[in-house]
């Protein structure tokens, strides 16, 4: 009888342990108090991305033995302590005003503009360009709806996102720095070939990406009869990340 009591007691203890373990799922929660909070904190060396209070915010790491990004077609690792579970996307266009100068039928006119994109914790992003071809109000330069080379004397308006040697040395390939994975879209990635279709994707990153600096090269060719006047166009760059 005493043995039975002991057996029930042991069984109860096992159940208690099981119950405790079974009802404690491993949900990571931020370390926080009323006035302070640690996001993405981990045990061990370093490992904290954001710590903040109402008047203070810090981003820091210590003691990492490896930091960086390793990736293959199906695999990507971002090592180091600066990780966040929040989506991040930053986008900037310095300047914003690009003057092509005077057009002439005898030679092409070119100019560049730039923008940069970073988008972490995502499945990548796409960049679209939206806007009409330059117009003087009554006449619109013919956009290059098919990828083509520069043909002086023919009305053409096109762009690409790579380094070119024709009609002049202009543009640059996407600059990915250390952590970027941005690329020019196929239609806009052939040197010396230009194209412009409003709404098309001009660049993308197939995976989470650090900063990529893009350079847009603009090409304008006109005919002798291209109506005179100032031609303008407002181009909107739209970045869409998938999380």
């Amino acid at each position: 009888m005493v043995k039975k009591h002991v057996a029930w007691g042991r069984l109860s203890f096992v159940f208690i342990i099981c119950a405790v373990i079974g009802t404690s799922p491993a949900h990571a929660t931020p370390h926080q108090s009323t006035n302070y909070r640690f996001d993405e904190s981990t045990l061990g060396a370093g490992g904290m991305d954001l710590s903040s209070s109402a008047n203070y915010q810090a981003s820091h790491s210590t003691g990492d033995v490896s930091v960086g990004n390793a990736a293959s077609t199906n695999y990507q690792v971002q090592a180091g302590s600066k990780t966040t579970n929040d989506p991040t996307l930053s986008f900037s266009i310095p300047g914003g005003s690009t003057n092509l100068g005077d057009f002439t039928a005898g030679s092409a006119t070119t100019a560049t503009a730039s923008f940069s994109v970073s988008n972490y914790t995502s499945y990548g992003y796409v960049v679209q360009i939206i806007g009409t071809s330059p117009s003087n109000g009554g006449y619109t330069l013919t956009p290059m709806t098919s990828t083509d080379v520069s043909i002086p004397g023919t009305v053409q308006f096109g762009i690409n996102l790579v380094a070119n040697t024709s009609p002049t040395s202009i543009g640059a390939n996407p600059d990915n720095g250390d952590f970027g994975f941005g690329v020019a879209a196929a239609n806009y990635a052939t040197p010396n070939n230009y194209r412009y279709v409003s709404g098309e994707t001009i660049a993308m990153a197939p995976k989470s990406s650090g900063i990529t600096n893009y350079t847009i090269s603009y090409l304008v060719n006109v005919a002798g009869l291209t109506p005179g006047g100032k031609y303008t166009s407002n181009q909107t760059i739209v970045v869409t990340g998938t999380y």
Partner: protein
Amino acid sequence: MQKKRGILSRSLGIALLVATILAPLFSMNNAYASQITNRSLTLQAGATDGGSKPGGVVNHLFSFTLPSGTTVGSIQFAYCTTASGTCTMPTGLVSTSATLASQSGATGFTMVNTTNGSPYITRTAAVVAGAPVAVTYQIGSITNPTTPNQTFYVRISSFATTNASGGTTDTGTVAASTASQIILSGTMPESLVFCAGATITTTAGVPDCATATSGVISFNQLFSPTDTATASSQMVASTNAGSGYAITVNGPTLTSGANTVSPMASSAVGARGVSQFGINLKLNTTTTSTVPVGLEISVPSNGTNYRAQATAGYNTVDSFKFTSGDTVADSASGGAGGSDAQILTASYIVNVPGSQPAGTYTTTLTYICTPTF
């Protein structure tokens, strides 16, 4: 006593066993929101503004996948300056005019836009059945944040309730950014090439004003009541003016002191023995003169890049007219527009009666080409 202890111990064991079995079931009721996956926000152009234009009135297209088995009565889109923590609405964002322009996947929603920065869509609560559902909701008439190149976040939350209240069912955050617009500009210089002279020829097939000869021309014969005296001059015109050009002739009729040759005020065939001074821009026949005078416009107009044409009164073979100030030609063949260089030949005729006073008759005619850009 031992018996009582045994009963107590057994009861405790059974109670713990039941508690152990039931505890996980109760713990499953913890409200851990599932992650909305494959989510994105595309900033789409509005009626006039580009999708990412700061302060632009645009459309926001949300695409994401709702987990299955959850009840969805409303979905809220909270616009914030950060992805998590306290939500501060981005400066300038306006959502109180938002509309639900389109929906797919889980449908039947209508828009509630009363709270700026946190619009939600609502429907009669229903379970998302079967496999996870890919949905899209296009929110129209959202005014973007006004700060250029600003990242903003939209926290998407689904609720079982129809008014976006109570605990969230599923959540997910997307990031987007406004962007300064690229303002591209360039100038096509306005151009006009125009010249006149007795003759003008081409260089490498292109009419060349550098070849224009003196504008002093003489008629082919002395004036006579029995034959028509003729002469010609040439002009070259080219412009990139969007509305093309018009050429007028200006000046008096042929004059010798107080005597004149009557200008042909209306278009007519030349009549020998009558005082007439007229011009046209055609290749005329022997109906007009023994030796045909004039040439057609060269290069011939094609309605695209060659558009020159003689105008009414001056465009009929063997018919002539002269009124100072008249438009004798323009670049409206095939529609008014710019034109590459063409040579226009003006033919002059003089008929006189036998009583025409003797003398040397002269005039200075000025052709004016006016492009309209």
